C-alpha cells in the first residue's frame, strides 16, 4: 500500500512537468507554472532545520559523553548559535544597530570568509606536492596527459605567451596552441562525455519517474 502510494506520487510529480513540456504553448498550461513553483519552493524550504537537528544530535552526544575533542563540538554549537542570532538580529532589527552590523561583519567577513578561503587555498600547496609525488609517467597515457598539462600551463601564463610569441610566427604561439587544444580536442572530448552523461540522466529520470529502480538500496531508499 505504502509502496503504491509512493509510486503514484512520484509519477504525479513527474507527470505535471512532462505534460507541461509535451503540450503546445497554446494550451496555456504555462500559467500554472508560477503558483506550482511558489508552493514547491516553500515546501522544500521547510527542510531547513534538518541539518541543524542532525548536527546538534551528533555533537550534543559528543559533549554530553565528553568524548575527546568535545570542546570542538562546543565551539561548533556556539558558533552556530551566535551566527544564527547575528543573522536574525540583522534581519529583524530595523534600523540595524551598529553593534549588530559590526558583530555580523566580524563573524562573516573576518572569520567565515578567511577560514573558508584559506582552507580552500591549501589546494595550491597540495597541487605542488601532487605534481612532485603523484604525477608520474607510469604509462603512455600519463605521459600524454602530463605533456598536454605542461603545454596548457605554459600557454596561460604571461611569460610563456610573451616568450613563445617572440619565437613562433603570429597565430602559432603557445596561447594559440592552448586555445586550439581547448577549442577542438577538449571541447570534443567534453561533448562526448556530455552526451554520455545526458543519456545517463535521461535513463535515470525514466527509472525514477516510473519507479523502475530495484535492488537493495534502490528498493529501500528511492
Amino acid at each position: 500500500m505504502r509502496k503504491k502510494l509512493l509510486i503514484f506520487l512520484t509519477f504525479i510529480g513527474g507527470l505535471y512537468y512532462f505534460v507541461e513540456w509535451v503540450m503546445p504553448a497554446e494550451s496555456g498550461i504555462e500559467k500554472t507554472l508560477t503558483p506550482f513553483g511558489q508552493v514547491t519552493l516553500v515546501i522544500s524550504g521547510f527542510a531547513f532545520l534538518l541539518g541543524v537537528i542532525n548536527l546538534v544530535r551528533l555533537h550534543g552526544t559528543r559533549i554530553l559523553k565528553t568524548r575527546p575533542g568535545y570542546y570542538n563540538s562546543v565551539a561548533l554549537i556556539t558558533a552556530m548559535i551566535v551566527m544564527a542570532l547575528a543573522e536574525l538580529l540583522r534581519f529583524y532589527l530595523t534600523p540595524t544597530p551598529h553593534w549588530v552590523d559590526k558583530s555580523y561583519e566580524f563573524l562573516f567577513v573576518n572569520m567565515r570568509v578567511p577560514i573558508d578561503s584559506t582552507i580552500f587555498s591549501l589546494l595550491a600547496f597540495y597541487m605542488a606536492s601532487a605534481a612532485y609525488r603523484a604525477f608520474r609517467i607510469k604509462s603512455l597515457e600519463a605521459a600524454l596527459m602530463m605533456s598536454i598539462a605542461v603545454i596548457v600551463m605554459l600557454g596561460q601564463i604571461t611569460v610563456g605567451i610573451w616568450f613563445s610569441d617572440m619565437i613562433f610566427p603570429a597565430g602559432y604561439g603557445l596561447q594559440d596552441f592552448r586555445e586550439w587544444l581547448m577549442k577542438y580536442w577538449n571541447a570534443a572530448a567534453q561533448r562526448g562525455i556530455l552526451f554520455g552523461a545526458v543519456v545517463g540522466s535521461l535513463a535515470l529520470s525514466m527509472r525514477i519517474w516510473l519507479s523502475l529502480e530495484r535492488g537493495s538500496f534502490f528498493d529501500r531508499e528511492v
Partner: protein
Amino acid sequence: MKKPWYEWIQSIDRRIIYLVVFVVVSLPFFIKIKLPMRPSEPTENLYNKVEQIADYNKTSTKKKCIFFQMDWTPSVQAECWPQTEAMIEHCFMRDIPFIIMGWAPEGPMLTQTIAEKRAKEHGKKYGEDWVNFGYKPMNLPAFLAFIKDVYSQINQDTEGTPIRNVPVMQNVESIRDVDLIFHVTGSGGVEAWIQYLQPETGTDVATGCTAIIGPEMYPYLDSGQLIGMMEGLSGAAQYEHQIGYIGKGTRGSGSQNLAHFWIIAMMVLGNVGYLFQRKQEREEKQRLEMAGE
C-alpha cells in the same frame, strides 16, 4: 650506505616544497614586471558583447541591462572576485545598468561590496545604476516560475524596497528585457540557464568560472549556448587588460608565472628521479637473471 641521487631528488620533504610555493608566489608582489597580454577568444567575445550592449544603450531610451547571477562563495573569491570586479567596472564605465542575484548566499553580498567600492569612483548610485536582489534560494520549479514572471518570485531587493519601485527595474518588465546573463560560479550551475531560460527567451549567456571548470564550458562555447567566458584569474586579467583597468587579476598574473614554473619543475624533478630509479631497477633485475643462468 649513501642514497643514490635519483632517490634523493625524489625524497624532498613536502614542507620544503610548500615553503618554495610560498616564496615564489610572494616574490612577484614586490618585484613587478609588466608583460604584454592578449585576450583569449572567449574573453574577447564577452567583451565585444558588453560593448554591443553599451552602444545600443547610447542610442536607445530603453536601456538594456546585464543580469549578474552570482553563484560563488568565499572559497573561490580568489577567481570570482576579480571577474566580477572587472565586469562591474566595465558596466560602470559604459554605464550599463545591472541586476545582481545569487543562489549562493555570499555571492550577492560580496558583489554588493565590490559594486559599492567601484561606484564611489564612478559616482554611481544604488538603485539607479544597479539593483541587488540578494540571495534568492530556488529549486528548478521556482526557477521556471522566475523565468515566466520575475516579479512573482522576487518581491523585495536587499534594501527592502519593492523591486517595482527601483529605477533600474523600470526598463525590465520580464527576464526577456535582460540582454546578457553573466553567471559567475565556482561550481557550475550555468546549465540551468542554458537549458531552461535560453530556449524560452533567446537571451545570451556568458560565464565567469574558476579555471578548473573552464574546460567543461567549451562544448557550450562551441555551440553558442555560451557567448563568452572569463576563465579563472587569467581570464579576469585579460578582461581587465581589455577595459584598461588594473585589478586583482592583473596583479596576480606575476605570481602565476613563477608558481606555474615551480609546479612544472616539480613534475620534471619527480619524474626524472622516478624514471632513473625504474631504469636502475630494470638493469638490476637483468643482472640477477644473468647471474641465475
